[in-house]
């Protein structure tokens, strides 16, 4: 066990009647880039504030480096938190901002400046130490906030949607940048976001949260390809959901009756289903393929062109389906056209219907 491990041991956080986090149980390994992904209000920020020490868990324990953090204040934990709005001090210079944690520890002025300059080199912003915060661009402020957090030499860096204020291009650039900084310093990064793109591109592992519950913890590829719950399947990426009743199951392959006819899908998480059970089959739009020999008959409603991708909206058995294809090439399909669809059962997921 390294000092950079974080363990949430059955953590629940309640505010009065409201349960913000329900029984979170997970282990984050030292040096891991770990993301909590979920819609706003799912409890991910509460959980982060709990790890950083601003909130005590109502039940359960937070362990950092194997040590119980009960009644250990935020300033005594080996964590540094980067706030959503960065919380840089506007009246101080960049160097003073970065060196503030050192000032708190009584490090002398000269030494502080030296450390600040080193950190500015680390985040590839040499020479801006004497500028004021407002003179920097959004991306530069972002990096200064990281440098300030690194100045305390934390074991764990906690980031609360730090990219949300940036524009799209910069956000994509900062993803790469953040990941690179993380690998350079080798710290544990715990990252909070509602943006699946951020979570999937940067993280070693992702925990998907909904309404206070962690629904699935896996690497990004597994989260996307093999969602375990209906929420994960529909929140992460686009998906087609096709309700049906189980006919039979052999191994992982589940055969089910749907409005589109009898289909075969892969049982999510290797669940065993009883025949006749209400289930939902999830297929990603890019896994649905136009195939003249396909079993699913559908009618084109419209096709939209969106640069790198085009989206085909279809109607099949009174249900709406969506197919995503590579953007360029052929003409857009005309409404009313009859097509046949197919998909690889191995790239689909069958789950119990919600409430079942």
């Amino acid at each position, binding site marked *: 066990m390294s000092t950079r491990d974080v363990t949430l041991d059955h953590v629940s956080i309640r505010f009065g009647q409201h349960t913000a986090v329900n029984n979170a149980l997970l282990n984050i390994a030292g040096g891991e880039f770990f993301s909590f992904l979920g819609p706003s209000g799912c409890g991910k920020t509460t959980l982060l504030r709990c790890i950083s020490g*601003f909130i005590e868990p109502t039940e359960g324990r937070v362990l950092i480096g194997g040590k119980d953090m009960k009644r250990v204040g935020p300033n005594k934990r080996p964590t540094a938190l980067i706030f959503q*709005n960065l919380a840089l001090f506007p009246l101080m210079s960049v160097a003073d901002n970065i060196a503030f944690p050192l000032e708190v520890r009584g490090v002398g002025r000269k030494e502080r400046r030296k450390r600040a300059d080193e950190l500015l080199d680390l985040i590839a912003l040499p020479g801006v130490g004497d500028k004021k915060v407002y003179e920097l661009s959004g991306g530069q402020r972002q990096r200064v906030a990281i440098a300030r957090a690194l*100045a305390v030499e934390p074991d764990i860096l906690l980031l609360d949607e730090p990219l949300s204020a940036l524009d799209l291009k910069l956000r994509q650039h900062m993803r790469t940048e953040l990941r690179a900084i993380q690998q350079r310093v080798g710290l544990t990064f715990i990252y909070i976001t509602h943006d699946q793109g951020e979570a999937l591109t940067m993280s070693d592992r992702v925990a998907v949260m909904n309404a206070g519950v962690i629904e699935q913890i896996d690497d990004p590829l597994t989260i996307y390809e093999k969602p375990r719950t209906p929420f994960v399947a529909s929140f992460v990426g686009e998906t087609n959901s096709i309700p049906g009743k189980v006919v039979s199951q052999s191994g992982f392959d589940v055969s089910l009756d749907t409005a589109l006819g009898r289909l075969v899908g892969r049982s999510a998480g290797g669940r065993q289903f009883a025949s006749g059970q209400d289930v939902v089959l999830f297929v990603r739009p890019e896994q649905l393929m136009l195939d003249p020999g396909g079993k699913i008959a559908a009618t084109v409603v419209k096709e939209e062109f969106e640069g790198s991708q085009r989206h085909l909206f279809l109607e099949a058995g009174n249900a709406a389906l969506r197919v995503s294809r590579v953007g360029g090439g052929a003409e857009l399909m005309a409404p009313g056209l009859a097509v046949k669809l197919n998909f690889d059962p191995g790239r689909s997921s069958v789950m119990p219907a919600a409430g079942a």
Partner: protein
Amino acid sequence: MERIKGIFGDFVGRHGLGVAIYISASVLVWVIVLIALPQVAMLDYSFRHNLPPAQIGGPEDVYTISNYSYFLFGNGESFNALDTGVLFKTLFAAAIVTFIDILICYPIAFILAHSATGVAARMMVLGLIVPFWVNEILRAFAFRVIFGATGLVNGIGMGMGLWDTPVDFIRADVALYSSLTYSYILLMVFPIYNAVEALDRNQIEAAQDMGAPWWRVHWRIVLPVAKPGIASGATIVFMLTAGALAAPQIIGGPSNLWFTQLVYQWFNDASNWQRGAAYATILLGSCLTFVLLLMKVFRVPIGAIGR
């Protein structure tokens, strides 16, 4: 002039000619008739001799600095220690009152802006406004009652056996300082509240997260943000305290004069408006100089006031 024309034109465009004329006329009356003219007249007065009505406008009616030199040297050649002493004592006392108000109001404003909510916040604001409902004279007499020889404080103190004979809080100016401090609390709280309220709570938490104890959080994060507010509040409180008349008259120690009382005596008792005007001008000038000096020392730009 061009700019004023431009602003006026804008205003006409946006609100119509009638409103524009009304607004500019009121501003002009306000600035010129109510502020500038009386002050200029007083300034003019202060450089004239106190003549009987018959001689006004006559050959004797010439400009003089005798009213100002009286403040420094009195009638004779010797230094007018009494009046200059009163001025310095007044400025010093006003500074002390201002300082106490800062000490009291900074925490109140901070709590009001960052932790008080709902009923608690409303009660706090109400508690700050109530002092303004009570008129100045009544307030002064109330403090006389509280701090008098048989007053509340002496009663409690002696009842608890803290002291044996009544303490003369009036002579020691404790009552006066308390009353003035209490009177202007609201005028100090609001500007500080205004400044501190803009502070992002995350900055405080960020500083705490980096291990800063509460005093450093305030010293490095909150206080710099509050500084313009403190400067605004301090200016108002200082000016009003130095210019207070009723409170020093009623609860000032018998041997202690406030400078405004001297001004009042020249105007009223001695019927020497010229010298009174000179003394009032001296008070205004000293106050302004003192405030500007302090702002220089604490590096607050003039523009920060009233923000």
